[in-house]
Protein backbone atom coordinates (compact mmCIF):
# COMPACT_ATOMS: atom_id res chain seq x y z
CA UNK A 1 0.00 0.00 0.00
CA UNK A 2 1.51 3.32 -1.10
CA UNK A 3 1.57 5.74 1.82
CA UNK A 4 4.07 8.22 3.26
CA UNK A 5 5.18 7.99 6.90
CA UNK A 6 4.14 10.71 9.35
CA UNK A 7 7.58 12.33 9.02
CA UNK A 8 7.42 12.32 5.26
CA UNK A 9 3.94 13.85 5.42
CA UNK A 10 5.38 16.70 7.48
CA UNK A 11 7.94 17.18 4.73
CA UNK A 12 5.12 17.22 2.19
CA UNK A 13 3.30 19.90 4.17
CA UNK A 14 6.39 22.10 4.36
CA UNK A 15 6.71 21.74 0.59
CA UNK A 16 3.12 22.91 0.14
CA UNK A 17 3.69 25.83 2.53
CA UNK A 18 6.17 27.34 0.10
CA UNK A 19 3.37 28.48 -2.15
CA UNK A 20 0.48 30.92 -1.69
CA UNK A 21 -2.85 29.61 -0.43
CA UNK A 22 -4.57 27.39 -2.98
CA UNK A 23 -1.47 26.91 -5.15
CA UNK A 24 -0.44 23.54 -3.75
CA UNK A 25 -0.36 22.05 -7.25
CA UNK A 26 3.05 23.73 -7.52
CA UNK A 27 4.33 21.03 -5.17
CA UNK A 28 3.56 18.33 -7.75
CA UNK A 29 6.96 18.09 -9.42
CA UNK A 30 8.99 18.09 -6.17
CA UNK A 31 6.48 15.67 -4.65
CA UNK A 32 6.81 13.23 -7.54
CA UNK A 33 10.58 13.20 -6.94
CA UNK A 34 9.94 12.37 -3.27
CA UNK A 35 7.45 9.65 -4.17
CA UNK A 36 9.75 8.11 -6.76
CA UNK A 37 12.60 7.92 -4.20
CA UNK A 38 10.32 6.51 -1.54
CA UNK A 39 8.39 3.93 -3.55
CA UNK A 40 10.96 1.83 -5.41
CA UNK A 41 12.57 4.30 -7.79
CA UNK A 42 9.63 4.51 -10.16
CA UNK A 43 6.09 5.90 -10.36
CA UNK A 44 3.33 3.34 -10.61
CA UNK A 45 -0.24 4.41 -11.30
CA UNK A 46 -0.97 3.74 -7.63
CA UNK A 47 1.85 6.05 -6.55
CA UNK A 48 0.72 8.75 -8.94
CA UNK A 49 -2.88 8.52 -7.74
CA UNK A 50 -1.67 8.80 -4.13
CA UNK A 51 0.36 11.93 -4.94
CA UNK A 52 -2.71 13.42 -6.62
CA UNK A 53 -4.81 12.75 -3.55
CA UNK A 54 -2.30 14.55 -1.32
CA UNK A 55 -2.64 17.67 -3.44
CA UNK A 56 -6.34 17.44 -4.16
CA UNK A 57 -5.85 17.18 -7.91
CA UNK A 58 -7.16 14.68 -10.47
CA UNK A 59 -5.05 11.64 -11.48
CA UNK A 60 -4.80 12.92 -15.05
CA UNK A 61 -3.12 16.08 -13.79
CA UNK A 62 -0.43 13.86 -12.28
CA UNK A 63 -0.09 11.52 -15.27
CA UNK A 64 0.34 14.36 -17.73
CA UNK A 65 3.23 15.77 -15.68
CA UNK A 66 4.85 12.39 -14.96
CA UNK A 67 4.89 11.57 -18.67
CA UNK A 68 6.39 14.93 -19.69
CA UNK A 69 9.52 15.11 -17.54
CA UNK A 70 12.38 12.73 -18.32
CA UNK A 71 13.57 12.13 -14.75
CA UNK A 72 10.46 10.18 -13.81
CA UNK A 73 10.61 6.43 -14.35
CA UNK A 74 7.27 4.99 -15.40
CA UNK A 75 8.54 1.42 -15.27
CA UNK A 76 10.58 -0.35 -12.59
CA UNK A 77 14.32 0.25 -12.78
CA UNK A 78 17.37 -1.50 -11.39
CA UNK A 79 18.92 -0.67 -8.06
CA UNK A 80 21.59 1.42 -9.79
CA UNK A 81 20.59 3.54 -12.74
CA UNK A 82 23.36 4.74 -15.06
CA UNK A 83 22.21 7.83 -16.97
CA UNK A 84 24.97 8.51 -19.49
CA UNK A 85 24.96 11.80 -21.38
CA UNK A 86 25.19 11.42 -25.16
CA UNK A 87 24.66 14.98 -26.42
CA UNK A 88 27.19 16.74 -28.73
CA UNK A 89 29.82 18.03 -26.29
CA UNK A 90 30.03 14.63 -24.54
CA UNK A 91 30.11 12.84 -27.91
CA UNK A 92 33.21 14.88 -28.80
CA UNK A 93 34.91 13.34 -25.77
CA UNK A 94 34.01 9.72 -26.35
CA UNK A 95 30.60 9.17 -24.72
CA UNK A 96 29.62 6.74 -27.50
CA UNK A 97 32.58 4.53 -26.60
CA UNK A 98 31.72 4.61 -22.90
CA UNK A 99 28.10 3.70 -23.63
CA UNK A 100 29.30 0.84 -25.83
CA UNK A 101 31.61 -0.34 -23.07
CA UNK A 102 28.86 -0.33 -20.42
CA UNK A 103 26.53 -2.23 -22.78
CA UNK A 104 29.15 -4.92 -23.31
CA UNK A 105 30.17 -5.11 -19.66
CA UNK A 106 26.59 -5.40 -18.36
CA UNK A 107 25.21 -7.31 -21.33
CA UNK A 108 22.23 -4.99 -21.80
CA UNK A 109 21.02 -2.48 -24.37
CA UNK A 110 20.16 1.14 -23.65
CA UNK A 111 16.87 1.27 -21.74
CA UNK A 112 17.24 -2.24 -20.32
CA UNK A 113 17.87 -3.62 -16.83
CA UNK A 114 20.20 -6.51 -16.00
CA UNK A 115 18.51 -9.82 -15.17
CA UNK A 116 19.64 -9.59 -11.52
CA UNK A 117 17.86 -6.26 -11.20
CA UNK A 118 21.05 -4.41 -10.27
CA UNK A 119 21.71 -2.10 -13.20
CA UNK A 120 19.67 -0.05 -15.65
CA UNK A 121 21.35 1.83 -18.51
CA UNK A 122 19.76 5.01 -19.87
CA UNK A 123 21.12 7.63 -22.21
CA UNK A 124 20.17 11.19 -21.33
CA UNK A 125 20.61 14.67 -22.77
CA UNK A 126 23.09 17.33 -21.65
CA UNK A 127 23.58 17.29 -17.88
CA UNK A 128 25.65 20.47 -17.59
CA UNK A 129 28.99 18.69 -17.11
CA UNK A 130 30.40 19.19 -20.59
CA UNK A 131 33.81 20.26 -19.32
CA UNK A 132 34.15 17.00 -17.39
CA UNK A 133 33.04 14.62 -20.14
CA UNK A 134 32.34 11.81 -20.70
CA UNK A 135 30.07 11.40 -17.70
CA UNK A 136 26.90 10.00 -16.22
CA UNK A 137 24.44 10.59 -13.41
CA UNK A 138 23.88 7.91 -10.75
CA UNK A 139 21.15 8.87 -8.32
CA UNK A 140 22.00 12.25 -6.85
CA UNK A 141 25.60 12.26 -8.05
CA UNK A 142 27.45 13.03 -11.24
CA UNK A 143 30.30 10.63 -12.14
CA UNK A 144 32.57 12.55 -14.42
CA UNK A 145 35.77 12.08 -16.44
CA UNK A 146 34.69 8.49 -17.13
CA UNK A 147 37.15 5.97 -18.49
CA UNK A 148 36.71 2.23 -18.91
CA UNK A 149 38.69 1.76 -15.70
CA UNK A 150 36.43 4.15 -13.81
CA UNK A 151 33.36 2.37 -15.12
CA UNK A 152 34.79 -0.93 -13.88
CA UNK A 153 35.37 0.60 -10.44
CA UNK A 154 31.84 1.99 -10.27
CA UNK A 155 30.24 -1.29 -11.29
CA UNK A 156 32.36 -3.20 -8.77
CA UNK A 157 31.47 -0.76 -5.99
CA UNK A 158 27.77 -1.13 -6.81
CA UNK A 159 28.01 -4.93 -6.69
CA UNK A 160 29.86 -4.80 -3.37
CA UNK A 161 27.08 -2.76 -1.83
CA UNK A 162 24.71 -5.76 -2.00
Amino acid sequence: MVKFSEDKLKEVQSMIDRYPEGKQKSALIPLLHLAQEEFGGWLSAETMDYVGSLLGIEPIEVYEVATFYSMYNLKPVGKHVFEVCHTGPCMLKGSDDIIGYIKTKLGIKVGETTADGLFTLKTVECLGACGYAPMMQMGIDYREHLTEAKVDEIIAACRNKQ
Partner: protein
Amino acid sequence: MATKLLLAKAHVEGIRHFEVYRREGGYAAVEKALKMEPGAIVEEVKKSGLRGRGGAGFPSGMKWSFLAKPEGVPRYLVCNADESEPGTFKDRYLMEFIPHLLIEGLIVSSFALGSNRTYIYIRGEYAWIVGILEQAIAEAKQNGFLGKNILGSGFDCEIYVQRGAGAYICGEETALIESLEGKRGNPRIKPPFPAIKGLWDCPTVVNNVETLAAVVPIINIGGEEYAKIGVGRSTGTKLISACGNINKPGVYEIDMTISVEEFIYSDEYCGGIANGKKLKACIPGGSSVPILPANLLLTTAKGEPRLMNYESLSDGGFATGSMMGSGGFIVLDEDQCIVKHTLTLARFYRHESCGQCSPCREGTGWMEKILGKIENGKGAISDIDLLWDIQRKIEGNTICPLGDAAAWPVAAAIRHFRDEFEWHVNNPELCQTQNFGLAHYADPIHVPA
Protein backbone atom coordinates in the same frame (compact mmCIF):
# COMPACT_ATOMS: atom_id res chain seq x y z
CA MET B 1 44.69 39.56 -15.28
CA ALA B 2 41.04 40.30 -15.94
CA THR B 3 38.71 41.66 -13.25
CA LYS B 4 36.78 38.91 -11.54
CA LEU B 5 33.48 40.31 -10.36
CA LEU B 6 31.77 36.98 -9.74
CA LEU B 7 34.34 34.25 -9.22
CA ALA B 8 37.08 36.18 -7.37
CA LYS B 9 36.30 34.43 -4.09
CA ALA B 10 34.97 31.17 -5.51
CA HIS B 11 37.91 29.13 -4.19
CA VAL B 12 38.38 30.75 -0.81
CA GLU B 13 38.18 27.91 1.70
CA GLY B 14 34.74 27.72 3.26
CA ILE B 15 33.19 30.35 0.98
CA ARG B 16 30.02 28.23 0.83
CA HIS B 17 29.43 29.23 4.43
CA PHE B 18 27.87 32.49 5.53
CA GLU B 19 30.63 33.52 8.00
CA VAL B 20 33.42 33.16 5.44
CA TYR B 21 31.40 34.82 2.65
CA ARG B 22 30.51 37.71 4.98
CA ARG B 23 34.12 38.08 6.10
CA GLU B 24 35.14 38.36 2.44
CA GLY B 25 32.76 41.30 1.93
CA GLY B 26 29.59 39.35 1.25
CA TYR B 27 26.11 40.82 1.88
CA ALA B 28 27.46 44.39 1.78
CA ALA B 29 25.33 44.87 -1.33
CA VAL B 30 22.19 43.89 0.60
CA GLU B 31 22.99 46.41 3.35
CA LYS B 32 23.59 49.11 0.72
CA ALA B 33 20.52 48.22 -1.35
CA LEU B 34 18.09 48.22 1.57
CA LYS B 35 18.99 51.88 2.15
CA MET B 36 18.18 52.73 -1.51
CA GLU B 37 14.83 53.23 -3.19
CA PRO B 38 13.86 50.12 -5.20
CA GLY B 39 13.59 52.36 -8.27
CA ALA B 40 17.17 53.53 -7.76
CA ILE B 41 18.39 49.93 -7.76
CA VAL B 42 16.64 49.35 -11.10
CA GLU B 43 18.38 52.49 -12.41
CA GLU B 44 21.80 51.13 -11.38
CA VAL B 45 21.08 47.89 -13.25
CA LYS B 46 20.01 49.92 -16.29
CA LYS B 47 23.16 52.07 -16.13
CA SER B 48 25.31 48.94 -15.84
CA GLY B 49 24.28 47.72 -19.30
CA LEU B 50 23.83 44.22 -17.86
CA ARG B 51 22.28 41.88 -20.43
CA GLY B 52 20.52 38.62 -19.70
CA ARG B 53 23.17 35.98 -19.23
CA GLY B 54 20.95 32.98 -19.98
CA GLY B 55 21.30 33.30 -23.74
CA ALA B 56 18.98 35.98 -25.10
CA GLY B 57 21.07 38.95 -23.93
CA PHE B 58 18.08 41.21 -23.34
CA PRO B 59 18.95 44.36 -21.31
CA SER B 60 18.14 43.40 -17.72
CA GLY B 61 17.37 46.88 -16.41
CA MET B 62 14.84 47.33 -19.20
CA LYS B 63 13.26 43.94 -18.44
CA TRP B 64 12.94 44.96 -14.78
CA SER B 65 11.36 48.29 -15.70
CA PHE B 66 8.56 46.47 -17.57
CA LEU B 67 7.34 44.86 -14.35
CA ALA B 68 3.75 45.87 -13.74
CA LYS B 69 2.89 46.97 -10.21
CA PRO B 70 -0.88 46.71 -9.76
CA GLU B 71 -2.13 47.49 -6.25
CA GLY B 72 -2.60 44.48 -3.97
CA VAL B 73 -1.19 41.93 -6.44
CA PRO B 74 1.96 40.03 -5.44
CA ARG B 75 4.99 40.28 -7.73
CA TYR B 76 7.46 37.45 -8.18
CA LEU B 77 11.13 37.15 -9.00
CA VAL B 78 12.09 33.76 -10.35
CA CYS B 79 15.69 32.70 -10.79
CA ASN B 80 16.19 30.53 -13.88
CA ALA B 81 18.66 27.84 -12.81
CA ASP B 82 17.37 25.37 -15.41
CA GLU B 83 20.72 25.46 -17.28
CA SER B 84 20.30 22.82 -19.98
CA GLU B 85 21.79 24.33 -23.15
CA PRO B 86 24.40 21.84 -24.37
CA GLY B 87 27.88 23.20 -23.68
CA THR B 88 26.73 25.31 -20.75
CA PHE B 89 27.72 24.59 -17.17
CA LYS B 90 28.57 28.04 -15.78
CA ASP B 91 25.50 28.50 -13.56
CA ARG B 92 26.20 25.12 -12.00
CA TYR B 93 29.75 26.24 -11.19
CA LEU B 94 28.56 29.49 -9.60
CA MET B 95 25.90 27.78 -7.47
CA GLU B 96 28.21 24.95 -6.42
CA PHE B 97 31.17 27.06 -5.41
CA ILE B 98 29.80 30.43 -4.31
CA PRO B 99 26.07 29.95 -3.59
CA HIS B 100 25.87 32.98 -1.28
CA LEU B 101 26.67 35.25 -4.24
CA LEU B 102 23.45 34.11 -5.89
CA ILE B 103 21.47 34.38 -2.64
CA GLU B 104 22.78 37.91 -2.12
CA GLY B 105 21.89 38.88 -5.70
CA LEU B 106 18.42 37.42 -5.22
CA ILE B 107 17.79 39.40 -2.02
CA VAL B 108 18.87 42.69 -3.63
CA SER B 109 16.81 41.96 -6.76
CA SER B 110 13.76 40.82 -4.76
CA PHE B 111 13.84 44.13 -2.87
CA ALA B 112 14.22 46.10 -6.09
CA LEU B 113 11.27 44.32 -7.69
CA GLY B 114 9.07 43.94 -4.63
CA SER B 115 9.10 40.14 -4.60
CA ASN B 116 8.45 38.75 -1.13
CA ARG B 117 8.51 35.14 -2.32
CA THR B 118 11.35 34.40 -4.71
CA TYR B 119 11.84 31.01 -6.33
CA ILE B 120 15.00 29.43 -7.67
CA TYR B 121 13.84 27.00 -10.38
CA ILE B 122 16.73 24.55 -10.67
CA ARG B 123 16.97 21.72 -13.17
CA GLY B 124 16.13 18.39 -11.54
CA GLU B 125 19.44 16.78 -12.43
CA TYR B 126 21.42 19.31 -10.32
CA ALA B 127 20.13 17.29 -7.37
CA TRP B 128 23.04 17.81 -5.00
CA ILE B 129 23.03 21.57 -5.55
CA VAL B 130 19.56 21.85 -3.99
CA GLY B 131 21.10 21.04 -0.61
CA ILE B 132 23.89 23.56 -1.14
CA LEU B 133 21.42 26.34 -1.96
CA GLU B 134 19.03 25.46 0.86
CA GLN B 135 21.91 25.48 3.32
CA ALA B 136 22.98 28.94 2.13
CA ILE B 137 19.38 30.17 2.36
CA ALA B 138 19.07 28.81 5.92
CA GLU B 139 22.31 30.52 6.92
CA ALA B 140 21.24 33.84 5.41
CA LYS B 141 17.94 33.53 7.28
CA GLN B 142 19.65 32.70 10.59
CA ASN B 143 21.64 35.90 10.17
CA GLY B 144 18.64 38.09 9.46
CA PHE B 145 19.12 38.51 5.72
CA LEU B 146 15.98 36.55 4.89
CA GLY B 147 12.64 36.19 6.62
CA LYS B 148 10.36 38.89 7.95
CA ASN B 149 11.56 42.51 8.08
CA ILE B 150 15.09 41.77 6.89
CA LEU B 151 17.70 43.87 8.68
CA GLY B 152 14.87 45.98 10.04
CA SER B 153 14.02 47.29 6.58
CA GLY B 154 10.34 46.42 6.74
CA PHE B 155 10.81 44.15 3.70
CA ASP B 156 9.85 40.47 3.99
CA CYS B 157 11.76 38.08 1.80
CA GLU B 158 11.78 34.31 1.47
CA ILE B 159 13.67 32.30 -1.13
CA TYR B 160 12.58 28.79 -2.04
CA VAL B 161 14.27 26.20 -4.23
CA GLN B 162 11.97 24.53 -6.76
CA ARG B 163 13.24 21.46 -8.58
CA GLY B 164 12.56 20.71 -12.21
CA ALA B 165 12.48 17.12 -13.46
CA GLY B 166 14.31 16.96 -16.77
CA ALA B 167 13.09 19.29 -19.52
CA TYR B 168 15.30 21.69 -21.47
CA ILE B 169 12.18 23.57 -22.57
CA CYS B 170 11.65 24.68 -18.96
CA GLY B 171 14.56 27.05 -19.43
CA GLU B 172 12.19 29.12 -21.58
CA GLU B 173 10.64 31.57 -19.13
CA THR B 174 6.96 30.86 -19.76
CA ALA B 175 7.49 27.08 -19.81
CA LEU B 176 9.41 27.51 -16.56
CA ILE B 177 6.42 29.32 -15.09
CA GLU B 178 4.07 26.56 -16.26
CA SER B 179 6.36 24.01 -14.60
CA LEU B 180 6.46 26.06 -11.39
CA GLU B 181 2.68 25.95 -11.41
CA GLY B 182 2.83 22.14 -11.46
CA LYS B 183 2.11 21.56 -15.13
CA ARG B 184 3.76 20.30 -18.33
CA GLY B 185 6.42 22.72 -19.57
CA ASN B 186 4.48 24.10 -22.52
CA PRO B 187 5.54 27.66 -23.42
CA ARG B 188 2.85 30.32 -23.49
CA ILE B 189 2.16 32.71 -26.31
CA LYS B 190 3.65 36.17 -25.65
CA PRO B 191 2.17 38.76 -25.19
CA PRO B 192 1.16 38.83 -22.42
CA PHE B 193 4.73 38.87 -21.14
CA PRO B 194 5.53 37.54 -17.65
CA ALA B 195 6.13 41.13 -16.50
CA ILE B 196 2.39 41.65 -16.86
CA LYS B 197 1.02 38.13 -16.34
CA GLY B 198 3.43 35.45 -15.18
CA LEU B 199 3.50 33.11 -12.21
CA TRP B 200 -0.09 32.49 -11.09
CA ASP B 201 -1.06 35.32 -13.46
CA CYS B 202 0.92 37.82 -11.34
CA PRO B 203 3.63 40.18 -12.64
CA THR B 204 6.85 38.19 -12.75
CA VAL B 205 10.49 38.67 -13.70
CA VAL B 206 12.47 35.58 -14.69
CA ASN B 207 16.25 36.05 -14.79
CA ASN B 208 19.22 33.75 -15.24
CA VAL B 209 21.51 32.78 -12.31
CA GLU B 210 24.51 34.73 -13.64
CA THR B 211 22.39 37.81 -14.34
CA LEU B 212 21.12 37.90 -10.75
CA ALA B 213 24.59 37.22 -9.31
CA ALA B 214 25.92 40.18 -11.34
CA VAL B 215 23.54 42.50 -9.48
CA VAL B 216 25.89 42.18 -6.45
CA PRO B 217 28.97 43.80 -8.03
CA ILE B 218 26.69 46.28 -9.79
CA ILE B 219 25.41 47.54 -6.44
CA ASN B 220 28.82 47.31 -4.80
CA ILE B 221 30.76 49.31 -7.42
CA GLY B 222 27.84 51.14 -9.04
CA GLY B 223 26.28 50.68 -12.49
CA GLU B 224 28.55 53.26 -14.12
CA GLU B 225 31.74 51.53 -12.98
CA TYR B 226 30.37 48.16 -14.10
CA ALA B 227 29.69 49.63 -17.52
CA LYS B 228 33.31 50.75 -17.86
CA ILE B 229 34.39 47.09 -17.95
CA GLY B 230 34.06 45.42 -21.34
CA VAL B 231 33.22 47.26 -24.55
CA GLY B 232 30.19 48.71 -26.34
CA ARG B 233 27.04 46.91 -25.32
CA SER B 234 29.05 44.07 -23.78
CA THR B 235 29.58 45.49 -20.33
CA GLY B 236 30.83 43.80 -17.18
CA THR B 237 32.25 40.30 -17.19
CA LYS B 238 30.89 37.08 -18.70
CA LEU B 239 31.17 33.50 -17.51
CA ILE B 240 32.19 31.17 -20.34
CA SER B 241 31.97 27.39 -19.91
CA ALA B 242 34.52 25.92 -22.33
CA CYS B 243 34.38 22.28 -23.40
CA GLY B 244 35.18 19.89 -26.22
CA ASN B 245 38.62 19.17 -27.62
CA ILE B 246 40.65 21.68 -25.60
CA ASN B 247 43.41 21.21 -23.04
CA LYS B 248 41.71 23.05 -20.19
CA PRO B 249 37.92 22.69 -20.23
CA GLY B 250 36.20 24.59 -17.45
CA VAL B 251 34.45 27.81 -16.45
CA TYR B 252 36.23 31.12 -17.05
CA GLU B 253 35.17 34.66 -16.14
CA ILE B 254 36.27 36.94 -18.94
CA ASP B 255 36.55 40.60 -19.78
CA MET B 256 34.71 40.80 -23.09
CA THR B 257 37.54 42.60 -24.86
CA ILE B 258 39.68 39.50 -25.31
CA SER B 259 39.94 37.82 -28.70
CA VAL B 260 38.56 34.37 -29.45
CA GLU B 261 42.06 33.34 -30.44
CA GLU B 262 43.41 34.31 -27.04
CA PHE B 263 40.53 32.54 -25.30
CA ILE B 264 41.26 29.29 -27.12
CA TYR B 265 45.04 29.27 -27.14
CA SER B 266 46.20 31.12 -24.03
CA ASP B 267 47.14 29.07 -20.96
CA GLU B 268 45.09 31.49 -18.91
CA TYR B 269 41.97 30.01 -20.56
CA CYS B 270 41.51 26.93 -22.78
CA GLY B 271 45.21 26.22 -23.31
CA GLY B 272 44.87 25.28 -26.97
CA ILE B 273 43.56 22.22 -28.79
CA ALA B 274 44.22 18.92 -27.00
CA ASN B 275 46.45 16.10 -28.26
CA GLY B 276 48.31 18.31 -30.70
CA LYS B 277 45.28 18.51 -32.99
CA LYS B 278 44.12 21.48 -35.03
CA LEU B 279 40.97 23.54 -34.52
CA LYS B 280 38.22 22.67 -37.03
CA ALA B 281 35.06 24.29 -35.74
CA CYS B 282 33.42 25.90 -32.75
CA ILE B 283 29.97 26.65 -31.37
CA PRO B 284 30.73 29.71 -29.21
CA GLY B 285 27.47 30.16 -27.29
CA GLY B 286 25.66 26.90 -26.60
CA SER B 287 24.34 24.38 -29.12
CA SER B 288 21.58 26.65 -30.44
CA VAL B 289 23.91 29.23 -31.95
CA PRO B 290 25.51 28.77 -35.37
CA ILE B 291 28.60 26.58 -35.62
CA LEU B 292 31.53 28.28 -37.32
CA PRO B 293 34.53 26.84 -39.13
CA ALA B 294 37.92 27.74 -37.62
CA ASN B 295 38.67 30.52 -40.06
CA LEU B 296 35.38 32.39 -39.53
CA LEU B 297 35.54 31.80 -35.80
CA LEU B 298 38.88 33.49 -35.35
CA THR B 299 38.30 36.35 -37.78
CA THR B 300 35.19 38.05 -39.07
CA ALA B 301 34.37 37.97 -42.78
CA LYS B 302 36.02 41.39 -42.97
CA GLY B 303 39.28 39.84 -41.78
CA GLU B 304 39.22 41.46 -38.31
CA PRO B 305 40.05 39.43 -35.21
CA ARG B 306 36.87 38.17 -33.59
CA LEU B 307 36.41 39.10 -29.94
CA MET B 308 34.58 37.34 -27.12
CA ASN B 309 31.67 39.78 -26.87
CA TYR B 310 28.08 40.08 -28.06
CA GLU B 311 28.72 42.41 -30.99
CA SER B 312 31.81 40.72 -32.38
CA LEU B 313 30.45 37.17 -32.13
CA SER B 314 27.34 38.34 -34.02
CA ASP B 315 29.37 40.21 -36.64
CA GLY B 316 28.23 39.05 -40.05
CA GLY B 317 24.86 37.82 -38.82
CA PHE B 318 24.21 34.16 -39.45
CA ALA B 319 25.83 34.37 -42.88
CA THR B 320 29.34 34.54 -41.43
CA GLY B 321 28.88 34.98 -37.68
CA SER B 322 27.34 33.42 -34.61
CA MET B 323 26.26 34.64 -31.14
CA MET B 324 27.37 34.98 -27.54
CA GLY B 325 24.31 32.98 -26.50
CA SER B 326 24.69 31.22 -23.15
CA GLY B 327 28.48 31.24 -23.26
CA GLY B 328 28.69 27.48 -23.76
CA PHE B 329 31.88 27.37 -25.83
CA ILE B 330 32.18 24.01 -27.65
CA VAL B 331 35.39 23.28 -29.54
CA LEU B 332 35.71 20.63 -32.27
CA ASP B 333 39.09 19.41 -33.51
CA GLU B 334 40.09 18.16 -36.97
CA ASP B 335 38.99 14.57 -36.20
CA GLN B 336 35.40 15.47 -35.46
CA CYS B 337 32.58 14.81 -37.88
CA ILE B 338 30.27 17.76 -38.40
CA VAL B 339 27.45 15.51 -39.65
CA LYS B 340 27.65 13.31 -36.58
CA HIS B 341 27.78 16.27 -34.21
CA THR B 342 24.80 17.88 -35.91
CA LEU B 343 22.95 14.57 -35.61
CA THR B 344 23.48 14.50 -31.82
CA LEU B 345 22.12 18.03 -31.59
CA ALA B 346 19.12 17.18 -33.79
CA ARG B 347 18.41 14.24 -31.52
CA PHE B 348 18.61 16.60 -28.53
CA TYR B 349 16.06 19.05 -29.92
CA ARG B 350 13.71 16.28 -30.99
CA HIS B 351 13.87 14.87 -27.45
CA GLU B 352 13.29 18.25 -25.86
CA SER B 353 10.50 19.56 -28.10
CA CYS B 354 7.38 20.03 -25.98
CA GLY B 355 5.23 19.04 -28.97
CA GLN B 356 2.84 22.00 -29.09
CA CYS B 357 3.83 23.37 -32.49
CA SER B 358 3.69 21.18 -35.57
CA PRO B 359 6.76 22.61 -37.32
CA CYS B 360 8.94 21.84 -34.27
CA ARG B 361 7.31 18.58 -33.16
CA GLU B 362 7.42 17.09 -36.66
CA GLY B 363 10.42 18.98 -38.02
CA THR B 364 12.87 18.01 -35.28
CA GLY B 365 12.16 14.30 -35.68
CA TRP B 366 12.32 14.57 -39.45
CA MET B 367 15.69 16.37 -39.39
CA GLU B 368 17.08 13.76 -36.99
CA LYS B 369 16.02 10.93 -39.31
CA ILE B 370 17.55 12.54 -42.38
CA LEU B 371 20.80 13.36 -40.58
CA GLY B 372 20.91 9.76 -39.38
CA LYS B 373 20.58 8.55 -42.97
CA ILE B 374 23.39 10.80 -44.17
CA GLU B 375 25.65 9.88 -41.23
CA ASN B 376 25.12 6.17 -41.90
CA GLY B 377 25.87 6.39 -45.60
CA LYS B 378 22.26 6.12 -46.73
CA GLY B 379 21.62 9.73 -47.70
CA ALA B 380 21.04 11.38 -51.05
CA ILE B 381 22.13 14.83 -52.24
CA SER B 382 18.48 15.88 -52.25
CA ASP B 383 18.42 15.10 -48.49
CA ILE B 384 20.76 18.02 -47.88
CA ASP B 385 18.39 20.39 -49.65
CA LEU B 386 15.46 18.82 -47.84
CA LEU B 387 17.19 19.49 -44.48
CA TRP B 388 17.68 23.10 -45.48
CA ASP B 389 14.03 23.36 -46.42
CA ILE B 390 12.77 21.81 -43.19
CA GLN B 391 14.84 24.08 -40.93
CA ARG B 392 13.69 27.11 -42.89
CA LYS B 393 10.07 26.12 -42.33
CA ILE B 394 10.54 25.66 -38.58
CA GLU B 395 12.34 28.96 -37.99
CA GLY B 396 9.98 31.72 -36.93
CA ASN B 397 6.90 29.50 -37.07
CA THR B 398 6.72 28.40 -33.45
CA ILE B 399 5.41 29.72 -30.13
CA CYS B 400 8.86 29.67 -28.54
CA PRO B 401 12.51 29.86 -29.65
CA LEU B 402 13.17 26.11 -29.32
CA GLY B 403 12.09 25.75 -32.94
CA ASP B 404 14.68 28.33 -34.01
CA ALA B 405 17.23 26.69 -31.72
CA ALA B 406 16.65 23.38 -33.51
CA ALA B 407 16.81 24.98 -36.96
CA TRP B 408 19.92 27.12 -36.56
CA PRO B 409 22.51 24.35 -35.95
CA VAL B 410 21.34 22.45 -39.03
CA ALA B 411 21.34 25.62 -41.14
CA ALA B 412 24.83 26.62 -40.00
CA ALA B 413 26.27 23.14 -40.50
CA ILE B 414 25.01 23.03 -44.09
CA ARG B 415 25.91 26.67 -44.76
CA HIS B 416 29.54 26.27 -43.70
CA PHE B 417 30.24 22.54 -44.08
CA ARG B 418 28.15 21.51 -47.08
CA ASP B 419 31.01 19.67 -48.74
CA GLU B 420 31.36 17.46 -45.68
CA PHE B 421 27.68 16.47 -46.03
CA GLU B 422 28.14 15.82 -49.76
CA TRP B 423 31.20 13.72 -49.05
CA HIS B 424 29.08 11.48 -46.78
CA VAL B 425 26.50 11.08 -49.54
CA ASN B 426 29.10 10.37 -52.23
CA ASN B 427 31.24 8.06 -50.08
CA PRO B 428 28.71 5.95 -48.18
CA GLU B 429 31.18 3.23 -47.14
CA LEU B 430 34.27 5.36 -46.66
CA CYS B 431 32.46 7.79 -44.36
CA GLN B 432 31.77 4.91 -41.93
CA THR B 433 35.46 4.43 -41.20
CA GLN B 434 37.15 7.73 -42.03
CA ASN B 435 36.68 11.39 -41.17
CA PHE B 436 36.34 14.21 -43.65
CA GLY B 437 39.07 15.95 -41.68
CA LEU B 438 40.11 19.58 -41.53
CA ALA B 439 39.78 20.22 -45.29
CA HIS B 440 39.71 23.99 -45.96
CA TYR B 441 38.03 25.01 -42.71
CA ALA B 442 41.12 26.65 -41.22
CA ASP B 443 42.33 28.24 -44.45
CA PRO B 444 42.69 32.02 -44.19
CA ILE B 445 39.48 33.64 -45.36
CA HIS B 446 39.49 35.69 -48.52
CA VAL B 447 38.70 39.31 -47.75
CA PRO B 448 37.23 41.01 -50.82
CA ALA B 449 39.28 44.06 -51.82
